[in-house]
């Protein structure tokens, strides 16, 4: 087994900061954030900015019209998406569309796991009657972005983690922590800081395996934690290992879920997963 290139957390963080190709793409996300902070900005203005990139707009509209959101009317423009889904959701979809190629190239099956986790997040949020189900869904979509960084920017580390996972019933993050002293949640956190992502995305990225530690968005993080478990239980996509991770009972109890809730959650989820197959390639 080859020794890890990155030996400690500090060096890993430096590696993440040196990443050249990641920050350029979501530049549009930063622009949107700045525009949204200005109360004078209208949906039409933000819509015009996104619409300048036709490929990006098409990807965002395809996701906005997918089974994720179950819209009865087709969303035909970015401005309309902004009005119906809200700034934060569209911003999340822009980010997702921007990094889609990277997610696909990083690890076979990770995109499927991501959209599956998003759909499961939406299903849990719907069952709980959350009025921010769309935002939570986007958090599910991006929760494993740290794995993209690991695969694309730290390939030697990714290789030894995969070897460890293949050797026995080991979770991906356990192998990362044992071999690297950091995991994809840390990478996600550093990336979220670097990109200045909102806490509704950053905290689930950082704490979806330790949701009991979430402070700013505890319920959103707990829902993504549950969704990750459910989609892994279904074996949909590839999260890097084949195991159902341990559940945080603190998160379970905070959400007020009951064991009988699994049946309606799975009943909501199943048709959505079937409908989402056309999103497995949004190019």
């Amino acid at each position, binding site marked *: 087994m080859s020794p890890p290139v990155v030996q400690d957390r500090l060096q890993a963080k430096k590696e993440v900061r040196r990443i050249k190709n990641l920050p350029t793409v979501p530049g549009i996300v930063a622009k949107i954030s700045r525009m949204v902070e200005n109360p004078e900005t209208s949906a039409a203005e933000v819509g015009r900015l996104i619409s300048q990139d036709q490929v990006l707009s098409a990807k965002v509209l395809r996701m906005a019209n997918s089974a994720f959101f179950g819209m009865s009317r087709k969303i035909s423009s970015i401005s309309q998406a902004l009005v119906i889904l809200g700034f934060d959701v569209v911003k999340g979809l822009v980010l997702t569309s921007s990094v889609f190629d990277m997610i696909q190239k990083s690890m076979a099956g990770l995109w499927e796991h991501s959209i599956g986790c998003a759909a499961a997040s939406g299903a849990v949020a719907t069952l709980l009657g959350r009025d921010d189900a769309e935002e939570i869904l986007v958090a599910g979509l991006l929760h494993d972005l740290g794995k993209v960084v690991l695969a694309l920017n730290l390939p030697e580390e990714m290789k030894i983690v995969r070897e460890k996972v293949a050797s026995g019933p080991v979770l991906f993050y356990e192998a990362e922590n044992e071999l690297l002293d950091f995991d994809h949640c840390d990478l996600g956190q550093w990336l979220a800081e670097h990109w200045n992502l909102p806490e509704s995305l950053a905290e689930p990225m950082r704490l979806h395996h330790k949701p009991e530690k979430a402070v700013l968005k505890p319920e959103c993080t707990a829902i993504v934690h549950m969704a990750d478990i459910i989609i*892994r239980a279904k074996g949909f996509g590839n999260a890097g290992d084949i195991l*159902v991770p341990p559940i945080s009972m603190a998160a379970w109890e905070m959400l007020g879920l009951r064991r*009988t809730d*699994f049946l309606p959650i*799975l009943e909501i989820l199943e048709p959505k997963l079937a409908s989402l197959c*056309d999103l497995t390639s949004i190019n």
Partner: protein
Amino acid sequence: MRRIALATAAPGQILAEKLTRHDGVLLANQGAEVTEGLLRMLARQNVETIMVEESDSRTPEEVMADYQRFRDDLDTRFVRADSQPVLMALKKTMIFIAEKDRDETLALLAPLPSADPAGSAVSPPQG
């Protein structure tokens, strides 16, 4: 169910979801049979893809083999979950759904009632 391009749809297929126009007007209900007329109307409405039910061409033996593979995969995925009752409730719910699907499929393949081929079914967790 699966999503297919309208151009590849054929009469006799069953719609797996309702179809609505951009303004919300219903075009066809879930469960409707695809006909030549429906295809022409959907093309006029610029519908590009539809979701159809998949016909099952498996034999009963293949259905049972698929179910067994599902159970084996499930056991592998849940191998470290034995000590967590909530996770075991999730597993039990998934088995309940899979057994229901299996039995419904077998009933369609062999419409004449016969003895339960797979033994007692699992019920979903209570409480």
